[in-house]
C-alpha cells in the first residue's frame, strides 16, 4: 500500500473519483453489471454442460444456436412459459419472496468488484467499479450471507420435508463455510491493511496474495465451493437424497431465479477470488513486463480480469465433473475440524510475523524461529484434541438428541399414565401420588 | 469485675448449666434455684455498696464495643435501677420455687429449657436496668423479647402462639421506632461533638439542649416503645393475652418486672434526655395514663379469667405509675418508683396465689369457683392479703407509694389526680369482688364441685368428703412468705427503698427542670 502511495502520490483516491461519477454513468455501470452477471450465467451454464460432457466423452448441448451456445437461453425462455405449481400448504408470501432475495443479493456482490483501473467512458474518467467503500469486502460477505435467507425461507415456505431439510442443510453448510471463508480473508486484509477491494488489488502490485498467502487461498477456494452449494458440496440439492433439495417445490421462473442466483453467485465469487488473491485486473506476470505495464492501462485489465474469472469458473466445473459428492458428516467435519483450525493457526502465524516485523526490528531467522514455535504450539494443541470421543464415554453431550432423522410427530405419549395407573395399585402404598403426578406430567408436556 | 457485672453474668452461667440438664427436671430445677438464690445473694453487697448520696451512677464499668460509633459495654446503677434489680433477683427464685407444684408445664416440655430461658431473661432484664450506654440498652431491650417470646409461646396456655406473636410484634415494633430515636439522638450528638457516642450521660447533656421540635420527635420514639412495654392505653392489648396465656411464673416476671422496664425507661431516658418535650407532652401522657387507670379498672370488671383480670388491674396500676412520673413532683415520682417495687411484690403475690387456686381448680374462670376459702382457708387468707396489698390498704407497702403519688399529683395536676383516685378505688373494689366471688360464700362452681372439676373435686356439699382439694403446701407457703414479709414490712417501714430512690429521682427532676428552663 505504501508502494501505491509512492507510485501515485497525486492520484485521487478511488472513493472520491467514484463519488464524482455523474448519475448517467452510475446507471450505465449498474446496467452493465447486471448484464455482465446474466451473460456470464447464460454462458457458464452451457459451458459447464459442454465441459462436463467432454469429460464424460459426450458432446453436450449442440442443437440450439451456433454450437448449442444458446441452449441455456432457450431453457430460460422455456421455463418462463412452464406452468408454475404452488404447493397447497406453502407459506405463499415467503414462498414468493424467497427467490427474489437470493437473486437480488447475488447481483449485489458485483457492486464492489473492481473490474479495471481508471478508464475513459465517453470522455469521463472513472474506475470500472460500481462503488469503492472502505468496507467493500464486508459487502460481499453480507450479500452472500443474506443470500442464504432466500434458500432457507424458500425451503421452509414450501411446506414439504425435502425442501425443509435441503434448506436446513444449505443454511448449516453456508454458515459453516462462511467462517472458513471469512477467516481466510483476515490474512488478506492483514496484508492489504484495508477492507476496500480497490486497495486490496492495489496492494498486490508486488506479488499476488495467492502465492504469498497460499493456505488462505486454498481454504478460500474450498469454502466458496461450499458457499455456493456446488459439487462436491452440493448437499442441499443432493438429488439422490433430497430430490431437488430446497427448490424441490419450485417451478417455472421462480426455479429459474434460484438457478440464476446460484450461477451469478459463482461468477461473482470467482470475481471476488480474483480480486482478493489473483491480483484483480492486473496483468499476469510475464505480460506485466511488456512495455513497462502498458498492458495495465486502459481497457486491457478488464480482459485479464475476465480471463482470470473464467479460470476460476472452469475450476468449479472441473470439480463438479471430477469429484463425487461428499457425505454430510464428512463435509461438516472438513469445514469445522480442518479448515477452521488451520485457518486460525495460519492467522496467528502471519499476524505474529507481521507484528514482529513492524514492531521490533528482528532478523528473518528470528521470525522463522518464532513462527516455528507458533506452529509447534498449534501442532501440540491439535494433538491434544481427541479425534473422536471414545464411544465408551456415555457422557458426551448428545447434541443431536439422537433423533436424526426425525421420528414422526404424532407419536403416542400419554399411554404412560394409563400403564402407571394399572401397575400403580402396587406402588400406591409406597408413593401415593404416582398415578396422579403421572397424569399431571402429561399435561405439563403441553398435552402431547 | 463489679458486683453488678457478676449479677448480670451469673444467671447466664446458670442458664448454660441448666440447659445442659434437659433430661432431669428435678435436678434442673434445683440447679436453677441455686443459681437464682446466688443471684439474690449478690444483690446484698450491691445494695450495701450503694450510697444514695454518691454519684448518679455507681458500680460503673465500661468496655469498648464498636469504636466506629462510640458504643461501649457500659453498666452502672442508680437507685431506681438498684431497686428494680433487687425485685427481679427476688422474684425469680420464688417463680422457680413454684415450678412443678403450682406451675405445670405443658406435657412434653422439659423444665430445663424453661428454666434456662427464665435465667437468661433475668440476666437480660438486669442488663437492661443496668445499661448506661443507650445502644447497649436498646440491644438488650430488644433481645429481652426473645426468651420471653419462647417462654410464652412454648410453655403457655392453649392460645399461647397467638399471645406470643402478639407480644413480640408489639414490643418489636415499639423497639424499632425507638431505634429511630436512638439513632437520631446519636446523630445529634455526632453533629454536636464531632464524633458520635452513645454514652447515656453525654447524650443527656447534648440532646437535652436540642430544639423543642427535634426533642418532641425523638421523645415520641422512646415514649412509644416504653408505652408499649408499660402498657399504656391504647398500646396495652398484648398484655392481657400474654399474661393470660403465660405460665404463672412467667406472668409474674412479665407483669412484675418486664413491664417496669417501660416506666423505668420514662424515668431514665424520656425525662432527662428530652425535658422540654416531656413537659410539652406531659398532658398527653397524663391523659393516656388516667385513661389507662379508668379503662383498666373498668375492663377488669368484665373479665371472666383471673389472669386476664389481674392483667387489666395492672394496666390500671401502670397508668397510675405513669401519672406519678409525669406529674413532675418529687413526691409523685418517688411514689411512682416505690410503687413500681411494691406493685411487683403485691401483684406478683396475687398472681402466685391465683396460680395456686388455678392449680387446684384446674380452671382459670372466675365463675368456676366459689366459697373456696372453706376448703382452703390458708390460701384464702393469702389471697385476701394479696388483694389488700394490691388495693393499697394502709399498712401494706403499696399504700405509701400510692399516697405519695396522689400527694404529688394533686399539687401539680389536681384533675388527673382526682380521676386517677376514682380509677384506683374502682380497681380496689374489683379486687375485693374477685376475692369475694372466689373464696366466699357456699362452695360452688364447676372447678370445685361435680363433674367439671379436676380429679380431686368434691361432690355436692352435703356429702362430706372435702379432702381432695388441699390447702397450701409448706413449699407454697415458703414461696409466699418472703413476699408477705416484704409487703407488711415495707408497708410499715418504707424508708430503705425511699431513701435509695429519692436522690436519683431528684437528679432526674432537676434535669427536667433546668432542661425545661432553657
Amino acid at each position, binding site marked *: 500500500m505504501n508502494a501505491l502511495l509512492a507510485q501515485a502520490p497525486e492520484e485521487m483516491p478511488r472513493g472520491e473519483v467514484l463519488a464524482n461519477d455523474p448519475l448517467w454513468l452510475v446507471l450505465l455501470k449498474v446496467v452493465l453489471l447486471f448484464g455482465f452477471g446474466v451473460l456470464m450465467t447464460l454462458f457458464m451454464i452451457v459451458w459447464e454442460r459442454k465441459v462436463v460432457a467432454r469429460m464424460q466423452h459426450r458432446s453436450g448441448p449442440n442443437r440450439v444456436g451456433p454450437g448449442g451456445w444458446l441452449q441455456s437461453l432457450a431453457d430460460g425462455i422455456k421455463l418462463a412459459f412452464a406452468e408454475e405449481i404452488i404447493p397447497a400448504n406453502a407459506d405463499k408470501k415467503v414462498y414468493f419472496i424467497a427467490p427474489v432475495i437470493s437473486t437480488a443479493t447475488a447481483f449485489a456482490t458485483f457492486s464492489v468488484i473492481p473490474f479495471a483501473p481508471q478508464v475513459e467512458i465517453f470522455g469521463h474518467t472513472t474506475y470500472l467499479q460500481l462503488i469503492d467503500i472502505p468496507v467493500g469486502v464486508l459487502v460481499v460477505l453480507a450479500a452472500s450471507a443474506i443470500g442464504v435467507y432466500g434458500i432457507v425461507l424458500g425451503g421452509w415456505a414450501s411446506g414439504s420435508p425435502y425442501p425443509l431439510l435441503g434448506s436446513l442443510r444449505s443454511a448449516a453448510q453456508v454458515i459453516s463455510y462462511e467462517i472458513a471463508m471469512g477467516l481466510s480473508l483476515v490474512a488478506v486484509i492483514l496484508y492489504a491493511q484495508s477492507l476496500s477491494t480497490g486497495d486490496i488489488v492495489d496492494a498486490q502490485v508486488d506479488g499476488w496474495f495467492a502465492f504469498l498467502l497460499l493456505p488462505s487461498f486454498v481454504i478460500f477456494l474450498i469454502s466458496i465451493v461450499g458457499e455456493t452449494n456446488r459439487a462436491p458440496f452440493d448437499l442441499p440439492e443432493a438429488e439422490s437424497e433430497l430430490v431437488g433439495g430446497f427448490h424441490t417445490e419450485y417451478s417455472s421462473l421462480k426455479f429459474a431465479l434460484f438457478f440464476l442466483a446460484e450461477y451469478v453467485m459463482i461468477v461473482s465469487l470467482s470475481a471476488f477470488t480474483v480480486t482478493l488473491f489473483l491480483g484483480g485486473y492486473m496483468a499476469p506476470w510475464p505480460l506485466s513486463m511488456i512495455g513497462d505495464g502498458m498492458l495495465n492501462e486502459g481497457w486491457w485489465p478488464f480482459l485479464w480480469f475476465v480471463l482470470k474469472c473464467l479460470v476460476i469458473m472452469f475450476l468449479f466445473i472441473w470439480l463438479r465433473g471430477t469429484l463425487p459428492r461428499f457425505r454430510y458428516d464428512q463435509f461438516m467435519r472438513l469445514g469445522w475440524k480442518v479448515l477452521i483450525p488451520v485457518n486460525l493457526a495460519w492467522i496467528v502465524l502471519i499476524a505474529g510475523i507481521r507484528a514482529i516485523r513492524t514492531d521490533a526490528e528482528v532478523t528473518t531467522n528470528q521470525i522463522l524461529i518464532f513462527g516455528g514455535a507458533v506452529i509447534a504450539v498449534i501442532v501440540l494443541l491439535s494433538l491434544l484434541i481427541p479425534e473422536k470421543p471414545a464411544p465408551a464415554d456415555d457422557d458426551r453431550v448428545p447434541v443431536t*438428541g439422537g433423533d436424526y432423522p426425525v421420528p414422526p410427530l404424532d407419536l403416542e405419549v400419554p399411554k404412560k399414565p394409563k400403564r402407571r395407573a394399572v401397575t400403580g395399585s402396587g406402588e400406591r402404598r409406597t408413593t401415593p401420588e404416582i398415578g396422579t403426578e403421572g397424569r399431571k406430567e402429561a399435561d*405439563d*408436556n*403441553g398435552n*402431547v | 469485675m463489679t458486683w453488678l457485672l457478676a449479677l448480670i453474668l451469673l444467671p447466664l452461667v446458670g442458664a448454660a448449666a441448666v440447659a445442659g440438664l434437659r433430661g432431669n427436671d428435678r435436678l434442673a430445677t434445683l440447679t436453677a434455684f441455686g443459681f437464682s438464690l446466688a443471684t439474690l445473694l449478690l444483690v446484698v453487697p450491691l445494695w450495701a455498696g450503694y450510697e444514695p448520696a454518691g454519684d448518679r451512677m455507681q458500680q460503673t464499668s465500661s468496655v469498648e464495643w464498636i469504636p466506629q460509633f462510640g458504643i461501649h459495654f457500659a453498666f452502672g446503677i442508680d437507685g431506681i435501677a438498684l431497686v428494680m434489680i433487687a425485685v427481679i433477683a427476688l422474684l425469680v427464685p420464688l417463680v422457680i420455687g413454684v415450678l412443678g407444684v403450682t406451675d405445670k408445664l405443658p406435657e412434653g416440655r422439659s423444665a430445663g429449657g424453661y428454666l434456662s430461658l427464665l435465667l437468661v431473661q433475668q440476666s437480660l432484664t438486669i442488663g437492661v436496668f443496668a445499661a448506661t450506654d443507650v445502644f447497649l440498652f436498646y440491644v438488650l431491650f430488644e433481645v429481652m423479647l426473645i426468651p420471653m417470646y419462647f417462654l410464652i409461646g412454648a410453655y403457655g396456655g392453649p392460645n399461647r402462639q397467638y399471645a406470643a406473636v402478639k407480644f413480640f410484634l408489639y414490643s418489636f415494633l415499639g423497639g424499632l421506632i425507638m431505634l429511630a430515636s436512638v439513632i437520631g439522638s446519636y446523630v445529634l450528638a455526632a453533629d454536636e461533638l464531632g464524633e458520635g457516642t452513645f454514652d447515656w450521660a453525654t447524650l443527656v447533656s447534648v440532646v437535652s439542649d436540642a430544639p423543642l421540635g427535634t426533642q418532641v420527635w425523638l421523645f415520641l420514639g422512646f415514649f412509644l416503645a416504653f408505652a408499649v412495654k408499660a402498657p399504656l392505653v391504647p398500646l396495652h392489648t398484648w398484655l392481657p393475652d400474654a399474661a393470660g396465656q403465660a405460665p404463672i411464673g412467667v406472668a409474674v416476671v412479665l407483669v412484675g418486672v418486664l413491664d417496669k422496664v417501660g416506666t423505668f425507661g420514662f424515668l431514665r431516658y424520656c425525662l432527662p434526655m428530652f425535658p422540654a418535650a416531656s413537659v410539652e407532652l406531659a398532658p398527653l401522657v397524663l391523659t393516656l395514663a388516667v385513661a389507662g387507670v379508668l379503662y383498666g379498672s373498668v375492663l377488669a370488671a368484665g373479665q371472666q379469667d383471673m389472669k386476664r383480670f389481674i392483667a387489666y388491674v395492672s394496666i390500671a396500676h401502670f397508668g397510675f405509675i405513669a401519672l406519678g412520673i409525669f406529674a413532675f413532683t418529687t413526691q409523685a415520682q418517688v411514689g411512682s418508683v416505690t410503687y413500681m417495687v411494691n406493685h411487683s411484690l403485691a401483684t406478683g403475690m396475687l398472681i402466685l396465689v391465683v396460680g395456686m387456686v388455678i392449680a387446684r381448680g384446674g380452671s382459670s374462670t372466675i365463675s368456676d369457683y366459689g366459697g373456696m376459702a372453706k376448703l382452703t382457708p390458708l390460701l384464702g387468707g393469702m389471697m385476701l392479703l394479696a388483694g389488700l396489698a394490691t388495693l393499697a390498704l394502709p399498712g401494706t407497702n403499696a399504700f405509701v407509694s400510692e399516697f405519695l403519688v396522689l400527694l404529688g399529683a394533686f399539687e401539680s395536676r389536681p384533675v388527673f389526680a382526682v380521676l386517677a383516685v376514682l380509677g384506683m378505688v374502682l380497681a380496689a373494689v374489683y379486687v375485693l369482688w374477685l376475692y369475694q366471688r372466689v373464696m366466699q360464700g357456699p362452695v360452688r362452681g364447676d372447678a370445685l364441685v361435680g363433674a367439671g372439676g379436676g380429679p380431686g373435686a368434691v361432690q355436692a356439699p352435703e356429702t362430706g368428703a372435702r379432702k381432695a382439694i388441699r390447702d397450701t403446701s409448706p413449699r407454697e407457703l415458703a414461696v409466699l412468705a418472703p413476699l408477705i414479709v416484704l409487703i407488711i414490712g415495707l408497708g410499715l417501714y418504707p424508708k430503705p427503698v425511699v431513701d435509695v430512690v429519692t436522690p436519683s429521682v431528684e437528679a432526674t427532676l432537676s434535669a427536667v427542670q433546668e432542661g425545661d428552663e432553657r
Partner: protein
Amino acid sequence: MTPEYYLLLSALLFSIGAVGVLVRRNAIVVFMCIELMLNSVNLSLVTFARIEGTLDGQVMAFFVMVVAAAEVVVGLAIIMSIFRTRRSASIDDTNLLKY
C-alpha cells in the same frame, strides 16, 4: 440528513421492541424483540459517535453485538431445552410459576 432522525428511529425501534416484549407471549418472539432493542441501541450508539466525531460509539456497538450474540446463544439454548421438554414456546404455558 440530520443525525437526529437516526436517534428518533432508534428510540422508535427500542419502544417497539419493549412493547413487543410486554405484549407478545411466544418466548422466541419476545426474545427477538429484545434483540431488536439491543440493535436499536447500536443504531443510536453509532449515531452519537457520528455526532461526537469519535469512534468510541462504534467500538461500543461492536461490544454490544458480541453481547447480543452471546445472549442469542444462551437464550436459544434455554428456550430450546424447555421447548423440547414441553413442546411449546409460549410463556403462558409456563404455568408452574406465577408469571
